[in-house]
């Protein structure tokens, strides 16, 4: 059993590194953020060593959620618009659109099978945004001949941290699909959601959300919440870019155009790191990984630019005394998130009790014969949709 002191020491180490990084990136709109946010398997590369004891994991997970919620409090409307613009600038909006499409195709097959027989289908949409994923699923059902009357058998639980998005989502459901029963839950931490009861869901979908979660606990919770014949469909962006401080140093220089002095200060936080090693590391990757990294770098460049633009506009408006944003409008965002390699996510899913192998899924569910259980969009292993069932 780890002592409280051990746990506190680990958290303290994270805080120390975070503080030092924060000092280095003071004054810029796009900061590095907390290393507690990165995928847990990569913490070792950031000099955070820990035993995989449940209490330690829980403490680190709580820390990660705390940082995630801090980040959400920074995402005001101005920041949200900068993100939205950067996503459009960087090709990612088309990627999200495709992810939605592929998720909806898989989900439709699963729901259709039950709903056409008049059975009740319960779905969760985790990180539902303004409802595009579920809206597309429902629309596909209608296109496939599901009558409006039959949609009464569909019940959806939406979980979304943004109150603005959930208002839009409610409007979409009310006006377009009023037959579908739904509940909307505003939350960043869905771990403790009372609705995630044992074996209560036929299907759980999620698009571009799980890269916010450092630890795989959510996978175990979702596994528990799924019925025996339930399915999980995840769409997400995959990259190992946050795994190494070397990558972040490269991004600081090439993506954020930070001053060499700041980049060196960052490099000096870690032993045996030098700029030449960083460049060599960045360039010596597989073609696939390079494509993923270039995709992320493009997004980061655009995001940094858009945030600085927003900052300038607000400062200008304040000077001109228009001040419609109010004096407190900050334009800040953190970079580090829990993106991971696709293979690492699959491994976590398997450990949580999910089956992801196409052959095994189709052997068990023969009616999925013609349905792909895995789909790649945009670039290899960069944006993927994965279907999984319980083992």
């Amino acid at each position, binding site marked *: 059993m780890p002592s409280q002191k051990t746990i506190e020491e680990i958290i303290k180490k994270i805080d120390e590194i975070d503080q030092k990084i924060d000092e280095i990136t003071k004054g810029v709109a796009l900061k590095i953020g907390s290393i507690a946010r990165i995928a847990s398997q990569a913490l070792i590369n950031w000099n955070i060593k820990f035993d995989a004891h449940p209490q330690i994991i829980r403490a680190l997970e709580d820390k990660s959620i705390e940082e995630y919620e801090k980040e959400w409090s920074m995402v005001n409307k101005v920041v949200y*618009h900068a993100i939205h613009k950067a996503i*459009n600038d960087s090709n990612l*909006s*088309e990627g999200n659109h495709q992810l939605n499409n592929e998720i909806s195709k898989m989900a439709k097959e699963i729901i259709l099978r039950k709903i056409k027989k008049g059975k009740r289908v319960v779905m969760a949409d985790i990180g539902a945004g303004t409802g*595009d994923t579920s809206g*597309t699923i429902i629309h596909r059902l209608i296109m496939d001949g599901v009558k409006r009357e039959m949609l009464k058998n569909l019940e959806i639980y939406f979980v979304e941290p943004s109150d603005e998005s959930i208002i*839009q989502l409610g*409007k*979409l459901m009310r006006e377009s699909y009023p037959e579908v029963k739904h509940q909307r839950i505003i939350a960043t931490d869905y771990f403790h959601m009372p609705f995630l009861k044992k074996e209560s869901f036929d299907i759980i979908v999620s698009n571009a959300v799980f890269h916010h979660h450092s630890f795989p606990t959510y996978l175990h919770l979702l596994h528990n919440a799924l019925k025996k014949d339930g399915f999980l469909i995840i769409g997400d962006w995959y990259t190992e870019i946050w795994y190494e401080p070397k990558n972040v140093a490269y991004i600081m220089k090439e993506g954020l155009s930070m001053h060499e002095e700041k980049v060196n200060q960052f490099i000096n936080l870690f032993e045996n790191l030098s700029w030449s090693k960083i460049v060599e590391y960045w360039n010596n990757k597989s073609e696939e990984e390079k494509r993923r990294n270039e995709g992320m770098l493009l997004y980061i460049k655009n995001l940094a630019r858009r945030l600085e633009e927003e900052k300038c506009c607000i400062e200008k408006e304040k000077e001109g005394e228009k001040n419609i944003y109010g004096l407190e409008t900050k334009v800040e965002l953190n970079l580090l998130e829990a993106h991971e390699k696709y293979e690492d996510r699959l491994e976590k899913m398997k450990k949580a009790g999910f089956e992801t192998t196409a052959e095994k899924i189709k052997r068990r569910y023969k009616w999925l014969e013609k349905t792909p259980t895995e789909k790649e969009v945009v670039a290899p292993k960069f944006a993927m949709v994965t279907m999984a069932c319980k083992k």
Partner: protein
Amino acid sequence: MSKDGKKSNFCDNMKGASKKIDKKMGEVKTYTHSYLLYPLLLLSPDKQGEATKKLLTNPSEIKAFNEEVTKSFKNSGLPVRPGCLLKISSEYYENYGFKATKENKDELIKELNKFFNKDRADEANEKTINPRGIIVQPYTHYANILVEIISELTYEIVKRKAKNDVIKISIIGSRDGTLPLAIINKINEKSGTLIEKTQLYLVEPYQKKLEETINKLPVYGIKSISETKKWGFSAEYKTDDEFLATQKNDDFDIVISYFHMHCKPFSDNHEAIRRVLKNDGLFIIADYFSPLWEYPSFVADFLRTIYGSEEIAAKFAKNFEDREPRVRELSESEQYAYQQHKDYWANVIKELHNLTFKDRKPFYFLRAHTTVQKRIEILKNYQFIVEEEKIASIAKNLKNIPNPYRVDPKSDFVSLIVASKED
């Protein structure tokens, strides 16, 4: 007619609805969901008075009149204003007291282009924004549905015709590339090789948006026609008229107008589109359809709603007192479109308040929206037909889609029309 058989004045109903909302919500500056409170407004026109003033046809007089109306909003401090009256559909000019004729048309178009060029420059310099960039549900979802349907239709036609020919497709208003990318993905997904039998002409006068689209295309493995000499994309940094003027007769299999027709007060491009289309070619229009700008009293109602101010509504309406004819009766789908259009704008305005601009300019809302029925009439005038079974006949998995297709079956607002050349 109302349920009790009494006729009621549309404008009074609009005023009544707005007042109730004002009372309910206090100082209402934005309009929220009131059409849900009043799902079917009683729209039976009984407008007092007729248009007594003669229709203006002299272009100088029309320009002067327009300037007089727009001047009344200058220095008003209002973030959202009507703007140039000429931007509404020319089909409705007479409702505003002027008329397009063969003699004055060129002059009016020249005047219009001045405003359109300024709009484009302001958007390029981020002094204003195209509201399509703002997410407003459920309309964003509806637009995505149309993208999916158009992609499916396009794929089916490419599949059918690719044996003999390269398929030429033009997308007018390609904007940020959502539609062309969706089409490319659909073709690639269903048959990787068919993309090499496809030529996509992306027509977009906003250069920055076109460049953004071009930057995205290589990721999908699509090359330029100049590179392959046979298939791929061509980026046409032009207006639709400029592009169509350079194209041969009977050359295109599909011309798609993607949320673009509401920027075209004159429908002359229909003639050019008909000319460039093959005999079995299709003209596909996806757009926001609505009667909201059909009459000045509708515009006044809109202003009243968004600003919660009789004074501002009257400021606009008074210009047309003796010019506006009797308001016609709107069909149910037009009424819903009217309300949804207002709702859309109310949400856009809320968001505009939260956006930053390098040098904020007012937003001018008047555009050339028409109803679905009006667009079909216009198409017929240019020898196009709109067959009910057309979409279903092209794609098996779209067999439940009628033509025209109203995404919300109650409402015109987000709709798709597939037109073919009349024999």
